[in-house]
């Protein structure tokens, strides 16, 4: 790179990217937990219905 990006600018981007990654990961985890919960509820209902 031939221009000076300055440390502060690089750090800000890294922090923002890390924060966005964390938010994205938590969103994915929440969606996965919801999906697992719906699947379990559905299985329990089928099992109790069959009995």
């Amino acid at each position, binding site marked *: 790179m031939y221009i000076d*990006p*300055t*440390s*502060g*600018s690089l*750090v800000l*981007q890294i922090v*923002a*990217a890390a924060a*966005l990654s964390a938010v994205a990961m938590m969103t994915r985890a929440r969606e996965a937990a919801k999906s697992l919960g719906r699947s379990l509820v559905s299985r329990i209902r089928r099992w109790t219905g069959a009995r």
Partner: protein
Amino acid sequence: MDGRPLDSSYRDPSGFVFTRSGVLYRQINRVFADEFEAVTGSGLYDELARQGLLIPHRSVSLDHAATSQAAAVVQPDPIRFISYPYEWCFSQLRDGALLTLEVQERALVRGITLRDASAYNIQFQGGRPIFIDTLSFERRKEGAPWAAYRQFCEHFVVPLALMSRVDVQLGALLRTHLEGIPLELGARLLGRRSWGSLGLLFHVQLHAAAQRRYRDRPPSATTSRAVTAQTLIGLVRSLRGLIARLVWQPRGTVWAEYATDNTYTAQAAASKRDLVMAMLRGGAVREVWDLGANTGEYSRAARTTAEHVVAFDVDPAAVERNYLRVRAEAERGILPLLIDLANPSPALGWAHRERFSLEQRGPADALLALALVHHLAIGHNLPLERIAGYFARLGRRLVIEFVPKSDAQVQRMLRSRPDIFPGYTREGFEAAFRTCFRIDEVQPVLGSERLLYAMTAVDQTSPAAP
């Protein structure tokens, strides 16, 4: 000088721009050969040029090279008239910012990134902004943040925010800050005006705070797995959203309403327009500079005769309105620019050679100086001989309107000050301009006491010049 880099093209070791026999070339040095080949092979140049976003260029043989360091030489299409960010109105700078972001996003999709985001990478051609620096691109390294983010904020975000939120005249800071308005200065000037905008808080205030925090304590790492192409595209879109929300209404300035609020009747204005067009005909007039163009009414009249018209005015709202019309109507031959003729753009930058003065970008084939000379002579106390001398250096032919003291506009100017202008008469005007021009024709402007002159410069090195 043939083969010598242009004085504005010295910062980047990857290459430079030079001329040979009046033709512009760009040399790519061997240190950058791999990157240039990779970017060329990605198809990015073709895509951007096809969409009118990047100045087209063609490869030429290495025989054209300026030095032995050359790996390749390209010949870009020439720009009709070079202008600078401090001469652009609000929307021109904003469109330049949006173009830069568009280019960066398209580059990121192909694994490429902009190495710099200077406003000087943008020029105006055919009424639209265009990216001109072919060497601004390189392959993106995994985990690397955008190195040009700070530069983009200082060249575009800060000045646009100041013009939008504080005062449009703060765009003039770009003339004293060729490297962009520093983030910390912008943050201080914006102050509480940033608080209503998450974008300004992040890209200006927090950015400036991070600069201060890490100025003397560089971080241990400057790459991160979290920084992906997607997160950088997210950064670009965040900047785009911020720029799109920065607006300025072109009103409230001294000359904003002049086009509809002046002393001309419709018939007089039409007669003046016909006279101007007639006076410009009958000569090889390819480029016209309209000095004091306001919103460009007479620039458009001149455009019917000339290939290209540069329309200068000192009023930000007038230039803004002119540009918005150029953009809305896709006009290709008119370039509105912000220039104060009493203090025109000087030569700037290292050794006064990086950015050309207004005069160095001439001479024009013809000048229009309509409803102008009284502002310079009476409003700025400029002797008529000096005005004549400067105009003779700016253009080969001149269509100029003499506004006598009896005119309502001049009377208004003299209302609150003593009349110290005994030489400001028709005779004095003609005598002053005859020092540098031949008067070819004089016509009265219908419905007024104003006179329209057609003149030809007879001495480009007039001793009357300051």
